């Protein structure tokens, strides 16, 4: 789910006929069909509990985004979009792994998702990122001079909804 076109049409999601193919193929043991069902049923009170528990449950974040379920689904249910939608809803409720927030913070501070770190060679030598980049004649990491404007724009964009 990229872009706030959140509501995946119910019609494509309801095409699911519960064949469990997505469950068998999921490498991390998610139950995509249950997530789809919860999404479809989120407007019916009887299914609402499941929907809410999925959102509160951090399990939804174990999706490895390998997209195998999407490829194998015989009814072309946009499973990954539903999962990402529910992740979005969950993050709005504060359920989001810390690692994601770290990455976000990094981007806001330095344009990129990771800060410089140690790199090991096969011989056991240890270098810092900047030194390796320099030694191999590669560009240095991005300059963070005008990061303030970048931050402001990120904020405005997300609020534009």
């Amino acid at each position: 789910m990229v872009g706030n076109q959140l509501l995946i049409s119910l019609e494509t999601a309801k095409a699911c006929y519960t064949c469990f193919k997505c469950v068998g193929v999921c490498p991390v043991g998610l139950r995509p069909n249950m997530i789809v069902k919860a999404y479809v049923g989120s407007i019916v009170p009887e299914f609402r509990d499941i929907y809410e528990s999925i959102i509160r449950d951090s399990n939804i974040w174990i999706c490895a985004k390998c997209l195998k379920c999407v490829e194998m689904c015989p009814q072309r249910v946009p499973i990954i979009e539903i999962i990402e939608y529910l992740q979005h809803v969950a993050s709005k409720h504060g359920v989001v792994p810390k690692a994601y927030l770290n990455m976000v913070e990094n981007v806001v501070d330095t344009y990129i998702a990771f800060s410089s770190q140690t790199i090991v060679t096969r011989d056991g030598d240890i270098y810092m990122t900047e030194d390796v980049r320099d030694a191999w004649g590669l560009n240095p990491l991005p300059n963070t001079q005008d990061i303030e404007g970048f931050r402001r724009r990120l904020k405005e964009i997300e609020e534009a909804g």
Partner: protein
Amino acid sequence: MRLAVFTGCFTLVKQIAVEASMLKVIQYFNIEPITPQKTNCCGFAFRSIAPNTSLYLTARILAYLNTFESEGILTLCNGCYLMLKETIYRLKENQRLLEIIRKHLKDEGIDIKSIPRIIHPIELFHDIIGIETLKNIANKKQYNISIATHYGCHALRPSTLPSFDNPLNPHKMENIAEALGFKTKDYPERLDCCGAVLLASKPELAMKLAYSKIAGTARWGFQLLITTCPYCFEMLDSRQEAVMQMFGEEPKLPVMLLAQLIGLQLGLNEKDLALNFNLSPIDRVLPQILKR
């Protein structure tokens, strides 16, 4: 030919070999790489938690690279490749958001003027540089090395977006390896996930996925695995020892980048190809490949 090279954060800070080897190799084929100084995260990490921001970040890359004269964007990372492809498609669908994003881009003095071609390294070697060129380099030399190919999930899937190969039964990487004189064969774990997406949030699960990928591949008797993606490389090469130890096994599968493999054939030296950063036991196959 001029190509803008988008490295992506993980290549930038960790898997420097991906960038170093690729830049060296493509220059050999008369491709002039443009390596922009300004760059930002492709937004993959924001996909679900801040979808608009993720689109903006990718759009910013597209707009910034627009300022250079190039025939396309070569993305070194599968995740970035998917984000760039998907964003182009999404922004076409959502004109309103596109306008908002363009307004912010214009603030910075950049704009999405044209839609560039997004190029995956495999596509570059197979379709742009071409199999015939690679065959000439190999010069009919045959190696007794059986190579397992690893494309990575986001290089191929989802099949709803345009793809450089058949998303469910790709063959271009095999073609490249065979053109270089290596043996390949289909194996069931070929399209499995390396687990890297979970590396930050669920490291143990990520290691488990990497283990089943490595162990599953190794049982077919391959001598070498090749990939292009920095994340897949991290999981399968850099962390192979840790992954295997977690399950009480020894590292056993040499892993190399596609660009490194081609670079060795071109006679580039090991330092240029940054082969000292490969932590998997590539010493097992390196002498055989170097013996030209």
